[in-house]
């Protein structure tokens, strides 16, 4: 009886493992893998709608890719990167600073829980409504301009949405505000994961705060730091809702705030599945390469650490 039961258990446990995995794979195949493959497939066809007439689908090979590389693709790629950098630099600086302050026991900050919640709050607001809010606040005769004029800083309203760097700056500011809370919490987790003995030892050896930061904190949290960098970059490449809503889908002025996904969206507006598919494939490849980089850095980083430990 007992032996039988033991045998049974062995078999069924392994079986259950697979059964519990099934839902994930079914959902992944239906909602991710099939669309992914059909995107590749669609990118090889001329397929759009002219008014009420459907053109195609006709097989055109790689023609869509040729057309897309002849278009302004590099410009939109540049726009996207610039917009991402504008948001990311202040985001990572402030987040790092806050993470260090919040985790520093010497400072004995009060109500950190409250501040952590507050800095995370902008992320809770939907990006579209956040952009609408900024659009209203910074419009030509909006409250911000009124304020600046009544304070005597400006003589005439500054037309944010008509200026290249005004618009880009607002998008950067919004992305910064939305994401610095999230990054702070991730970096805090990373710093708290570091053995406190390291910091104490450094202090006893007479290291200054700045030295501790550059010599201990940064190297030890490097994997998480790179993770934050790359996920933010991948997210930044897919930037869409904030500039789309702020510029009313036009990417103005002079298409300098048109991101890659807005470019994609423009093609989808004419139901141009061929071009949109080709653009998606390009984005997939770029994102894939970036993900590989993060993967190798992360795993490589851990191996390095282990080796160092062994040597000791």
């Amino acid at each position: 009886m007992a032996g039988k039961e033991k045998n049974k258990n062995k078999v069924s446990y392994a079986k259950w493992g697979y059964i519990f995995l099934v839902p994930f794979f079914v959902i992944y195949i239906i909602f991710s893998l099939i669309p992914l493959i059909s995107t590749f497939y669609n990118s090889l066809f001329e397929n759009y709608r002219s008014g009420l007439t459907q053109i195609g689908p006709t097989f055109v090979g790689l023609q869509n890719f040729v057309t897309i590389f002849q278009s302004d693709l590099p410009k939109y790629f540049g726009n996207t990167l610039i917009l991402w950098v504008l948001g990311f630099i202040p985001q990572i600086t402030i987040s790092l600073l806050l993470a260090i302050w919040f985790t520093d026991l010497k400072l004995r900050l009060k109500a950190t829980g409250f501040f952590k919640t507050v800095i995370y709050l902008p992320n809770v607001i939907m990006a579209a409504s956040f952009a609408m809010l900024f659009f209203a606040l910074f419009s030509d005769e909006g409250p911000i301009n009124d304020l600046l004029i009544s304070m005597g800083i400006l003589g005439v309203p500054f037309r944010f949405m008509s200026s290249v760097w005004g618009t880009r700056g607002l998008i950067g500011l919004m992305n910064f505000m939305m994401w610095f809370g999230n990054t702070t919490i991730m970096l805090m987790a990373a710093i708290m994961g570091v053995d406190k003995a390291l910091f104490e030892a450094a202090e006893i050896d007479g290291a200054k705060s700045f030295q501790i930061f550059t010599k201990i904190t940064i190297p030890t949290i490097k994997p998480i730091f790179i993770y934050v960098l790359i996920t933010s970059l991948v997210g930044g490449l897919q930037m869409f809702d904030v500039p789309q809503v702020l510029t009313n889908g036009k990417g103005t002025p002079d298409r300098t705030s048109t991101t890659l996904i807005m470019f994609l969206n423009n093609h989808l507006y004419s139901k141009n599945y061929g071009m949109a598919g080709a653009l998606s494939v390009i984005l997939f490849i770029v994102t894939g390469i970036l993900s590989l980089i993060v993967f190798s850095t992360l795993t490589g980083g851990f191996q390095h650490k282990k080796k160092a430990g062994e040597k000791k």
Partner: protein
Amino acid sequence: MRKRMFSLVLCAAMMAGMVTGCGSGAATGTAGDAGAAESTGAAAEGTAATQAAGGDAGKVVNIYCWNDEFKARYDDYYASKLPDGYTVNFITTPSENNAYQNALDEALLNQESAAADDKVDMFLVEADYILKYVNSDATMDIKEIGITDDDMSKQYDYTKVIAQDTNGAQKGISWQGCPGLYIYRRSVAKEVLGTDDPAKVQEYIKDWSAFDETAAKMKDAGYFMVSGYDDTYRTFSNNVSAPWVDADLNVVIDPKMEQWVEQTEDYTAKGYNEKTKLWAPEWAAGQGPTGKVFGYFMPAWGVDFVMAGNSLEKAEADGGKQEVGNGCYGDWGATTGPESYNWGGTWICAASGTDNGEIVADIMKTICCDDETMKKIVEEKNDFVNNKTVMEDMAKSDYSSAFLGGQNPLQMYCDAAAKIDMSKISPYDQGLNEEFQNCMRDYFDGNVDYDTALQNFYTVIKEKYPELKTN
């Protein structure tokens, strides 16, 4: 063993919970539907009691539109005539960025497979893209649903011709004409020009060079001649020598369009405009009590539907009324301006495959053909209706518009309507007009030079209409 039994029971309980969850959901749904059907029945008081819920299938009239202008006409002049048992649904999608057309196309392409209650019965189109629908199978010849030549005999010719396909089938009908005038602020005219009499003001803006001179005077007095970049656009775009797109699908920039760019660039440099954007809050504020803009190019619908509301000190939403004394309502006058033009206009089309043809025809006959109703629309709504007899009569009557300070502008509208030529339109006009204005903004704002702006225009229209060719 006991453990496994326990987990089995738990699983069973969970499954049961899910099933009952679904079941009860479905039950509520049915109950809700029944309730809705009952209330429809109740609303249609006086219907024969035998009318079962099932018998109502298809008696839902779906109307696609982009704003509530037509809905207002429908509510005021047709809703009470709707036969019992019918429901009318308005499906509204804003028109900007071709969103309305895309939503409509989607619905029309699914027309055949749609359930009877979801079929498009009727939809509204603008002059900018009417040809796309007129020359397609998605629209019906309205003669098939019973609109006769006789019904349409009093309509302005251009409103009929524009809605005919290449075989001459009448695919749409309109209740309004959209000749545009220059609507100016009387108090400013008096202050700067010394008169607010429409005929005398017309002398100051009778052609573009006179318009320029007056603009300079306005600037000196602290006013703006026009509100933004787009305000004179229609006076040029409606007088082009050829359509936007030629027979080989090449996009052609007409000399008139270049003229608009030059003029607007010049006005911006000289400070004759306020740099606003059409429909933006700043643009609308220029029509309000504190506005500094001398005048606006507007057709009749713009006067009634846009300016009258914007002119109020206390908005209608806050309980204000459209009456003289509220804001600058009544401080306006109308005059022909430098050039006659047409702006917009809404046509009603019957969708192929409609199952409520008789209701669609009845709405068309009432709102677009019936003298009595159309006269009321002019009197009550200040719209310019598509009925020569009514308009000529009203122009000679003692009709007066309170918004225009008691003026009767109808003769001017009638004269302008007679000059309208709508033969230079293309099916792509909405996208092209919108993007041309949008891309040229960068040039006027000083962000780019003219060639770059033009290049951006070509880029964006090729995204919107991949079949178009540009140089």
